[in-house]
């Protein structure tokens, strides 16, 4: 796909917004989050037909070959609508790691079905400590010269229980490498984890001399993983910025309509000042996410710190806005029926995946030379 300009990106974002307004309403989200798989296969197929699932996949494999700036905009709407789907796991993280792996055979074998949405992929890359870094890799790979086997535990595997393609990052004698295992080899070794964010699906996988296929080069797997992680972090930042904006809009709307003491509560400065501060958080998150996307797309020197900045600014903004939203709604915000807690749960999950705000702040100061 030729590079989009800003108005085409706006149009892409609006198209996704319209679809999700129609198919991922609050009641859709509540219905879907109670299902076992945690996503709506019909909506997933629609997203695939629209080209969203294949957005980041190269054109030669049936995708659209778009990049960070496009997926960031799509994810703003995903966050706003609390979409339940394996988009981040399959279409973003797995697709971009595979795309960076340099393994032509694996790409040819896996990416076309992933782009069509007929196969869902995920990556197992951290252990039970939940650190998305080389040190966090807790699976060990061994080779008898021809065949590979994996041992150890991988956790927080996003949509692992729904995956047709399970990629695994493991340590070898040479360093780090990427593998693929067949779900049929795993059986009961793959276990769904109960998640605080009910719109999210996580799994834990126990490998016990499980047969695996090497993807890319032995010992040099991490750079592709890091490349995919960075794109995923930008996408997640977009989700957080979009979620923050939607929750702020919802809260401001409530403050205009809820009357106490004979006046709309939004006329009280106690509420109005909170809303003004949250607007600063929410707009800053959008700026940070879009700046990170642009820096990554243009491969500028600034990309690494821009991603770290978005990593904590967007997570903190989404957390702050969703937390304050419950308080500003008062009693109704404390009920299960109100959507405020669904966003708070998503914000808390997003603030853990791929790195915490503290992790990103430490990385940021290092990247700036400190």
């Amino acid at each position, binding site marked *: 796909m030729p590079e989009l300009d*800003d108005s085409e990106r706006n149009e892409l974002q609006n198209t996704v917004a319209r679809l999700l307004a129609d198919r991922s309403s609050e009641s859709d989200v509540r219905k879907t989050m109670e299902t076992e798989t945690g996503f709506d296969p019909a909506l997933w197929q629609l997203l695939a037909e629209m080209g969203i699932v294949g957005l980041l996949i190269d054109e030669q494999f049936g995708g659209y070959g778009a990049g960070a700036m496009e997926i960031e905009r799509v994810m703003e709407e995903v966050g706003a609508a609390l979409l339940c789907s394996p988009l981040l796991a399959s279409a973003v993280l797995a697709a971009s790691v595979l795309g960076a792996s340099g393994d032509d055979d694996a790409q040819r074998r896996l990416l076309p079905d992933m782009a069509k949405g007929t196969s869902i992929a995920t990556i197992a890359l951290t252990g039970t400590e939940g650190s998305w870094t080389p040190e966090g890799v807790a699976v060990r790979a061994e080779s008898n010269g021809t065949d590979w086997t994996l041992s150890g535990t991988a956790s927080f595997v996003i949509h692992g229980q729904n995956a047709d393609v399970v990629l695994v990052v493991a340590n070898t004698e040479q360093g780090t490498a990427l593998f693929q295992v067949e779900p049929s080899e795993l059986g009961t070794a793959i276990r769904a984890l109960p998640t605080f964010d009910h719109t999210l699906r996580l799994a834990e996988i126990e490998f016990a001399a499980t047969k695996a296929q090497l993807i890319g080069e032995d010992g040099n797997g991490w750079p592709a993983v890091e490349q995919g992680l960075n794109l995923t972090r930008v996408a997640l930042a977009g989700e957080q910025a979009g979620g923050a904006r939607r929750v702020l809009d919802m809260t*401001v709307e409530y*403050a*205009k309509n809820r009357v106490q003491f004979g*006046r*709309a509560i*939004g*006329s*009280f*400065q106690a*509420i*109005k*000042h909170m*809303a*003004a*501060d949250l*607007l*600063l958080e929410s*707009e*800053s998150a*959008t*700026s*940070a996410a*879009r*700046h990170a996307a642009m820096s990554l797309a243009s491969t500028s020197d600034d990309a690494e710190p821009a991603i770290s*900045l978005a990593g*904590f*600014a967007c997570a903190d903004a989404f957390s702050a806005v969703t937390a304050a939203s419950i308080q500003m709604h008062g009693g109704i915000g404390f009920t299960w029926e109100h959507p405020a807690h669904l966003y708070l749960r998503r914000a808390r999950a997003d603030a853990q995946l791929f790195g915490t705000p*503290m992790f990103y*702040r*430490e990385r*940021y*100061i290092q990247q*700036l*030379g*400190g």
Partner: protein
Amino acid sequence: MSEASGDNPASVSNDAIRDEVQSWLADNWDPEAMKKGAFGPLGRDWTAKVVDAAWAATRWPKQWYGRDYNDAQARIVETEFARVGAPGTGQDRINLWANTVLTFGNEQFKKKYVPALLKSEINMCLLYSEPGAGSDLAGLRTRAERDGDEWVVNGQKVWTSGAATADYGMLVARTDWESPKHGGISFFFCPMKQPGVEVRPLRQITNESHFNEVFLTDVRIPATNLLGPLNGGWRVLQTALAYERSMMGEGARGPRSGAKGASEKGEEELIALAREAGRLSDPVLRQDIARVIAYKKLNALNTARAKAELEQGTSSPIMSLGKLAMSRILHEEAKLRTNLLDAGSLLESSDYPRAEDANFLTLNAYFTSIGGGTDQIQRNIIGERVLGLPKEPEVDRDVPFRSVRSS
């Protein structure tokens, strides 16, 4: 006055504008001459040249020293001036005096003052706040009474910078005590060099004196110096205040030793300070440093995004956030600089420049969080004008001003 080619500005190509401004600068701009003072005191001769060549306010109409440029075209001119370090352009954005006169003055008044204000030939000051009217500026009690062809003014103003050297002050005064408070205010262009004007410097918490109290006793203003309609001064004031606030969001003074504004400082400076203090390995401070650097960076990104959106013709809510963001940056940076020093911050004087920086910033941060509208007023503005939240009921809104309670 204008050398712009063609009648319809939209027909002037960007390249043609760039060529014209580049060649004009090549023929006229001389940074060495500016340094040596060859362009007169404060470079006024240079500014006059820029005004006469119609580069000072290119968005303005041709008959008022402009070129009828749109924003994108004007930015080209500003970019070219900035590239060679030449001042004087972009006054249609930042010269609050000239903008106010252009918007609200009559033809004769504009002819007299617009060129002088663009060329900085006259010095100006603001006569807005009063001891009893700070955040609630519309509660002002300085009175102007008509006497023949003149107005006679009595009252007290405060927080006026440049009052001692000003030729004129932009004054708001009450001209009708029977109307509710916003409806009885008029806006004047007040001559400062007269006996009834007494200026006393105010000493700030920073031990500096940038502001004055101004006592007005039977001060006389020609009736022609009324800007905007009689009793319609509140709207004139809003326009002038908007310029002032947007200027405060774009830059503010940092630590005392720093020449640049806080928002323009390099990201590395705080890291270097921590290293110098031997504290760079402290994990808590590292988190705080990252946080403060991020506040600055995010404000710059917000401003850049707002400008881009404005250029695309969409209005942006972000502009109004800049001042609030800057206030947080300054207060948080002050805390961080203090934490990097610990007991070192007990000291002052030029022998302890790091302590001076931290302590000055701690105090001067209030300049931004109070001046030009407190953070609390700014949050009201954002809540009401950007987010559309309802206003607080105002008990004095529809009451004749004469019966409004004051402290």
